[in-house]
């Protein structure tokens, strides 16, 4: 484990580390474009210059191994001059697209330009013209003029997705990224190239021109697309969610996430959600507040015994399962709980990178909770119960990510056989509104609006915090079940101690809430 000194700080690094890895690992800042910890070293941007004692020339940090006793700095005037010119060469042919470029606000060139001093360009010649708005595939658009040819995207399609769609064609400053005729950039991980592109050369068709990044807040959570549970960062504001990007977790998803998971957020935005509770009786739908509906539901659910069955999908949090199963047993007094395991047969599927066959984020959590409460009802029993009429009422905690519930309509048709159905659902689905029986639809909070824990395919429990609230009228599973059990709802903080957070925004929020007690104590609905 060689020791080195970087900018005066002594650091010990694993053998074989490069200087940039040492700096990255110890939180030191060094400007770079082409290096990425999840890809091979290219060494082409020439921006990560460092000065090494004993070496008259500046070196690149990404391809220089750390040796014992090495003294490194990237703050000297020599290094700054080299980095400034490195940036200059990137800018001389770069189009002044900032006003129309998505990357503005999170652009590597803008960041470096602000860092190395806002200077006037010395380039007075005509800039190189290349293709703009090139359709690379169904999800990604290329602007060759903005491209700094760092080759991250090409390395991604070669090393990570192993689909080899992208190449760099031509020589010199005529070089352009591209795909070949008949083979567009269309694999299950394409949009990762947009994440890793340091500039606005690659843009996501989903996000293009929709929002300026400085109007977006971000919060970390996990993806609920499958049982892998990739760690993600969601970007949102009052209008809803705009995009999702992966967050590095070396044990779960590395640096990447799949495109399917990335597009899921759309169901959580308000326009796709149930906002009011709905009740269908005698062919007509009436709307009411969730609280009012829950009061009515409690009348036939509380104490219903084995006439009532609970159907759960693996898409809710461990905390919700714990409380719900407890209430179902003590207040509803029923032992009939069934696991809607929509992907039982494909659960073991794995594409080798990130995508797994179980499209539920918390199947393991649900199975553990069921086991703990010794509930082992099978789906066949539910079907038999509905058939015979023994099961009168079915309460369903429906799946959030409808994209993956291929058997949704079939299950709806089955459950429609019950006399009374309470269906708790996040996003709208036409099949529910076609149900013919006495059905209550309860609007649910998406997992993005809750704190909780998902357990992934390998048994790893991942805790996440609420990202934002999109439909404040909706309830989470615990709240709904409390109301069905005839309890009142009080907002119980997770603990009695107000948890301090180090994000300044959170601190301000907390102070504001402490002052505003009226908001804090919510009475019965």
């Amino acid at each position, binding site marked *: 484990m060689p020791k080195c000194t970087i900018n005066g700080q002594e650091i010990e690094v694993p053998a074989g580390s490069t200087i940039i890895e040492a700096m990255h690992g110890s939180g030191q800042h060094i400007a770079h474009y082409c290096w990425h910890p999840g890809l091979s070293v290219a*060494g082409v941007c020439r921006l990560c210059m460092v000065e090494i004692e004993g070496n008259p020339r*500046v070196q690149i940090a990404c391809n220089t191994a750390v040796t014992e006793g090495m003294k490194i700095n990237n703050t000297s005037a020599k290094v700054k001059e*080299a980095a400034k010119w490195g940036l200059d060469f990137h800018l001389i042919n770069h189009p002044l697209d900032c006003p129309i470029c998505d990357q503005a606000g999170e652009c590597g060139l803008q960041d470096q330009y602000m860092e190395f001093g806002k200077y006037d360009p010395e380039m007075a010649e005509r800039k190189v013209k290349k293709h703009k708005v090139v359709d690379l595939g169904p999800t990604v658009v290329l602007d060759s003029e903005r491209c700094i040819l760092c080759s991250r995207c090409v390395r991604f399609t070669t090393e990570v997705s192993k689909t080899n769609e992208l190449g*760099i064609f*031509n020589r010199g400053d005529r070089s352009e990224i591209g795909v070949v005729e008949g083979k567009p950039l269309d694999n299950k991980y394409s949009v990762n190239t947009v994440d890793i592109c340091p500039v606005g050369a690659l843009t996501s068709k989903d996000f293009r021109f929709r929002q300026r990044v400085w109007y977006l807040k971000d919060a970390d959570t996990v993806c609920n697309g499958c049982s892998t549970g990739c760690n993600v960062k969601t970007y949102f504001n009052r209008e809803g969610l705009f995009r999702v990007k992966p967050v590095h977790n070396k044990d779960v998803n590395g640096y990447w996430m799949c495109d399917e998971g990335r597009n899921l957020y759309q169901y959580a935005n308000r326009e796709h959600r149930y906002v009011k509770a709905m009740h269908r009786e005698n062919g007509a739908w009436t709307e009411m507040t969730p609280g009012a509906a829950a009061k009515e539901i409690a009348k036939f659910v509380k104490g219903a015994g084995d006439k009532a069955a609970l159907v759960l999908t693996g898409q809710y949090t461990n905390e919700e399962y714990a409380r719900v199963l407890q209430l179902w047993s003590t207040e509803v007094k029923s032992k009939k709980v069934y696991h809607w395991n929509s992907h039982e047969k494909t659960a073991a599927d794995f594409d080798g990178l990130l995508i797994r066959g179980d499209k539920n984020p918390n199947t393991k959590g649900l199975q553990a909770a069921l086991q703990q409460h010794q509930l082992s009802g099978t789906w066949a029993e539910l079907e038999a119960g509905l058939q015979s009429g023994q099961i009168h009422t079915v309460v369903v905690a429906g799946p959030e990510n409808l994209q993956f519930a291929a058997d949704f309509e079939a299950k709806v048709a089955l459950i429609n056989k019950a006399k009374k159905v309470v269906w708790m659902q996040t996003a709208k689905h036409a099949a529910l509104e076609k149900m013919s029986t006495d059905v209550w639809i309860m609007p649910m909070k998406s997992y993005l609006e809750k704190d909780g824990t998902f357990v992934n395919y390998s048994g790893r429990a991942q805790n996440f915090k609420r990202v934002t609230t999109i439909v404040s009228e909706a309830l989470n599973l615990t709240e709904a079940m409390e109301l069905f059990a005839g309890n009142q709802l009080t907002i119980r903080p997770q603990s009695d101690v107000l948890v301090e957070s180090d994000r300044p925004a959170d601190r301000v929020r907390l102070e504001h809430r402490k002052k505003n007690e009226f908001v804090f104590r919510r009475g019965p609905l």
Partner: protein
Amino acid sequence: METKLLTEHYHVENFHTLTGYQAKGGYEVLKKALKLQPQQIIDEVKASGLRGRGGAGFPTGTKWGFLPKNNEPRYLLCNADEGEPGTCKDRVMMERAPHQLIEGMVISGHAVGSKKGYIYVRGEYVHVIRILETAVKEAYAAGFLGKNILGSGLDFDLDVYGGAGAYIVGEETGLISSLEGDKGQPKLKPPFPAVQGYLRKPTIVNNVETLAAVVPILKDGAAAYRKYGTEKSPGTKLFSLSGNIVRPGNYEVPLGYSLSDFIQKEGGGMRPGRKLKAVIPGGSSAPVLTADEVAKANLDYESLAGLGSMLGSGAVIVIDDSQCMVDLLGVLMHFYHHESCGQCTPCREGTGWLDKILHSILEGKGRLQDIDLLLKVADNMKGRTICALSDAAALPVLSFVTKFRDEFEYFVREGRSKVKGKAHAQMHH
């Protein structure tokens, strides 16, 4: 002072055939070398002081010594890409004496423990590729290549590979990339080819002339080789003499030979009515020398380095007073702009920028600050890239602008050439 060490029999009509080559003692040195231990050959080459004849001038024996001392398979690649403007000496060697190269390669293969070699020839040299392929076939038939060469128990397979037109594959790792079936883009160093080269195996890349020189060195010994040349630059070298000269051609002279003598005696001096203005002594990437500096220069590594230039590939390009230096720099900048592989930013963008600035000046639209801008850009392209093409583009800019600044300033101020009286657009479209 032409010296006929390598080129002794190049005038012989059939020297390029196996019969012709053997008639003049060809492959006798190989027989001798096969009886030696590899380390003996490496030591002899080290002692001779032979330095890479392609351009870098790195001591050959030392380079061979970087290979791992184990049984790991390694490759010997001959760099016959010869793209440096002004250079055509390797072409002559391969046209007239392909077997000299082959013999040199087998001996070198034995020295470095390589069982497989390639001669990478630039694609435009179609006839050279054909000559080499024929010679290789002859050598196989005679048992000088292949398995158990001349009963020595040693194997060496050789093949010829043709490129497809890119100056950058003359860079050793660019050549390796091209041979691997990729774009000919240089690779990051470290790792160095001797450790991880072609297909990630240890590889030695040597110039045509370097490998051919192994033959006379092994024939008469290092001490005899050192009788030619100087202390630090021993031996002979082939020089391509071209440009504004009476007798352009390829000449073998001992290193240390006076550049002025070379131009006057071998080259026949200037054309009638013309005066010497400048000389590029080592291929277009070498800093230009003024006529005064030429008078002080000898054709060896130290003398030229001392004058701020380099021996390089040994391409001596003579420029007389009919030429406009701004115009010629424009020709060179167009070349480097065209040939940059595009991988790393300073070179990719810098070569384009330099070309454009020169073009503006040549069209009569230059600004006075462009001259200093050329120097600044070139200065910041040096020493910051994966390979030396960026430096090769920068050095001519720095030397031309510094030494012939008056011509640049005239062009900017007057909008036309001091020498030719016209702007570029009126001369060439």
